């Protein structure tokens, strides 16, 4: 088995463990490359089905092509999608100008917490990867959140030999991370190998391309001329920029992600 086959098999195993253990299970789909790969892996794990709903936390500030791609794929593949927004905060004019971290908390963390409560999710599948940033590098594959979605990262349970945390207090939920062991390059190589459809914002237009997707006020494209996957893989081999360097919220504080994620951010 080569490396891509190994990590694919591991992810499928994790998805099947999640499906077996959690009656109320949902998968976060941000329309980005990672969670789109995850959707593909779910379909592979369950032989063409995705037996749980997809969840999109829509901040209302997403790049319009992302929403187009989302709606197109949902229609074509007949996917079960839950879209959730913090309407109240939006009506009150929440935006990044009020503070990026505050905005993330209100338009992403909070509606995510609400979705968990409304649907009673016991398990939430997320496409985070260890190589994205520091606090994610310390994550477990099955990671518990309390009833307010808080993450106690200083006292994580042991996780060994593919035996995951599946026992927890009622009201808490488990975040499942099937892509934790993937790298950015792995994602692109896999997209190429499997011919997975993705939103073309990752390809350069007018000398710029997105390396990571998010809300348009806080996500900046990088200089690039790359218009195919081969080119992206080549570019990543030579770059010394971090993947999330175009994500403004990360730069707000030395521990921005740790602070956001301990409160339930993805």
């Amino acid at each position, binding site marked *: 088995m080569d490396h891509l086959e190994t990590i694919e*098999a591991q992810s499928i195993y994790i998805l099947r463990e999640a499906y077996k253990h959690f009656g109320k299970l949902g998968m976060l789909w941000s329309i980005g490359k990672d969670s789109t790969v995850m959707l593909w892996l779910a379909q592979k794990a369950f032989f063409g089905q995705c037996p749980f709903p997809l969840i999109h936390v829509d901040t209302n500030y997403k790049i319009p092509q992302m929403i187009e791609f989302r709606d197109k794929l949902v229609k074509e593949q007949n996917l079960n999608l839950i879209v959730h927004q913090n309407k109240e905060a939006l009506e009150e004019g929440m935006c990044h100008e009020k503070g990026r971290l505050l905005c993330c908390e209100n338009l992403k963390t909070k509606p995510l917490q609400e979705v968990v409560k409304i649907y009673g999710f016991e398990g939430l599948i997320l496409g985070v990867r260890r190589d994205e940033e520091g606090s994610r590098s310390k994550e477990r594959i099955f990671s518990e959140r309390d009833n307010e979605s808080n993450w106690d990262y200083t006292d994580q*349970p042991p996780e060994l030999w593919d035996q995951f945390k599946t026992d927890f207090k009622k009201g808490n939920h488990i975040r499942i991370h099937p892509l934790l062991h993937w790298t950015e390059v792995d994602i692109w190589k896999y997209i190429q190998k499997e011919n997975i459809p993705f939103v073309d914002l990752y390809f350069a237009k007018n000398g710029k391309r997105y390396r990571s997707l998010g809300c348009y006020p806080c996500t900046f494209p990088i200089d690039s001329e790359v218009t195919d996957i081969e080119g992206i893989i080549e570019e990543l081999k030579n770059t010394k920029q971090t993947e999330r360097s175009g994500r403004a919220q990360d730069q707000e504080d030395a521990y921005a992600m740790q602070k956001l994620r301990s409160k339930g951010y993805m």
Partner: protein
Amino acid sequence: MTEVAVKTREKLNIVAVGHVDHGKSTLIGRLLFDTNSLQDGAIEKVKRISEQNGKPFEYAYLLDAFEEEQKQGITIDTTNINFSTAKRDYIIIDAPGHKEFLKNMISGASSAEAALLMIDANEGIQEQSRRHGYILSLLGISKVFVIVNKMDLIDYSEQKYNDIRQEFNKFLSNLNIFPIEYIPVAAFYGENIAKRSDNLSWYHGVTILEALDLVQKEPEAENKPLRFPIQDVYKFDNRRIIAGKIEAGTLKVGDEIVINPSGKKTKVKSIENWPNFYDKNYVSAGMSVGITFEDEFFNKRGEIISHAENKPQKGNLFNVNIFWMGKNPLVKGKTYKLKLTTQELECEVFSINKVIDSSNLNEASHFDCINKNEVAEITIKTKQVVCFDEFVDFQSTGRFVIVDGFDVSGGGIVLKTDDTLKNRMLEPLSKNLKPHPRLVTRQQKEKKLGQKAKVIWLTGLTGCGKNEIAAKLEKKLFELDKTVCYLNSSNARFGISSDLEFSETGVYEQTRRLAEIANQFINNGIITVVSSINRYKKAREIAKDIIGSDDYIEFHIDATENVLKKRALKGFYDNNENNDIKQLYEKSEYPVYSLYIDNFEFNSNEKVDYILENIKHIL
């Protein structure tokens, strides 16, 4: 270092372990720095944070991402870092060295294929150095480099380095760990990390960077016997798909398979793939797959699929080594959850055989419980039958975790079982016993004797001729240079079973004794012939169960009523109220060999030849 052109590069997971402050995170940080593997601004960010926290620059901050870790200067949780050499890609796992975070160290180390065990040259071997060494051996990680760090603090002394080396080597060899290399380094200054150092000119071995590429990756368990634990059964459409990950061996369409522990047999009908249906028709260790069976019966998660040869062991009592990470101690009399592959079942501690202080390998004096961070040898009892293997043979079916309440609190490996207890292990009446290991295996004995041991069980009503055939069979096997033993049921009545009645209970007990004795013989490599009336089919099922269906070969010597009456002792059948004496014998419900005798003066040599003809290829 960044040449990543080859499409399928090998990836190796390597963990850094050792006592707190012996420099694990520093070593990794420096390795990343020296190989130009850091991303833009990483060093500047660390400098900024160091200044903010009023501390000198630390390479360790590159890995210790949490605010608490940086402020307190310790690693709390394990980190995975991607790193590449020209040869292959690596995941370097940084594990915490604090005793308090042993569970995190174990989480990190459990996925490693090799380890860097760090020792501070100045402080020497400390509690966690030994404990982590012990954990590595329990986790089955045998590819270990010992890194003697902070050589600058002992003036780069070769003598002191050799002393540490000698002392630690002695400790590790007790754990069956034989390090690939010892490497003296000063990680903070980058000495012997990516580059050699003039200060250590007496050292002629490899640098850390060179050492990593020395590790040979273990091949997938593809060449081992099949182990395919059922993870789930799906019925999304008209297909009934058995899903799971193949832990060892290979499987293809048409294979005859056994579902353990029930022992049911079927064939593989198809291997299911998406999106391309015909992707794979042959699957092997490491793959997550879905298959369908030719026969549909009730299957559930936790059953282990194997081929007919080389099945996993099964039982509800087994001996293990365990490390405990729980907040509460592991105690007798409490119910825990055991998770072994996809099997989940209730268990309890049957007996605590040995508790070890893993920091010095001394035996603890208490046997009542196992405290956090202690290691022990215990006997576990599960509520239902569980399938498992010995860890030395199969890693993934030979290890398990124990859940206490909501938390995974212990991990363990299944120890070797005496061959005579492998097929089944019963609960003794005393809990002050433990099964003892032996140093010679059945396999070794069979090899020496040049044979495979089986039990040839001859049954049939009095007068059928079984004893005459059995005696000649023993002689014939002996003449063929086989090592053979013959257990005659009547003779046993003059010895070991002279206390037994001839009632139904007595007959059952007699069968049990013969089967247990035969079990001892075959597990010492000796072919065993048994002759016994054994007219109750349930009794024969017990014998088969004790011996194991793979080693039990039943021959029913059937004879006409006339033959029986003539050959039995005079008047033996006279008191029988049933006119049809042949009905006294209950036929087996599974396939057996059958010999039919219709002539009073039959040729027993021919019958022996017939038996041999049928079994000689398996002996």
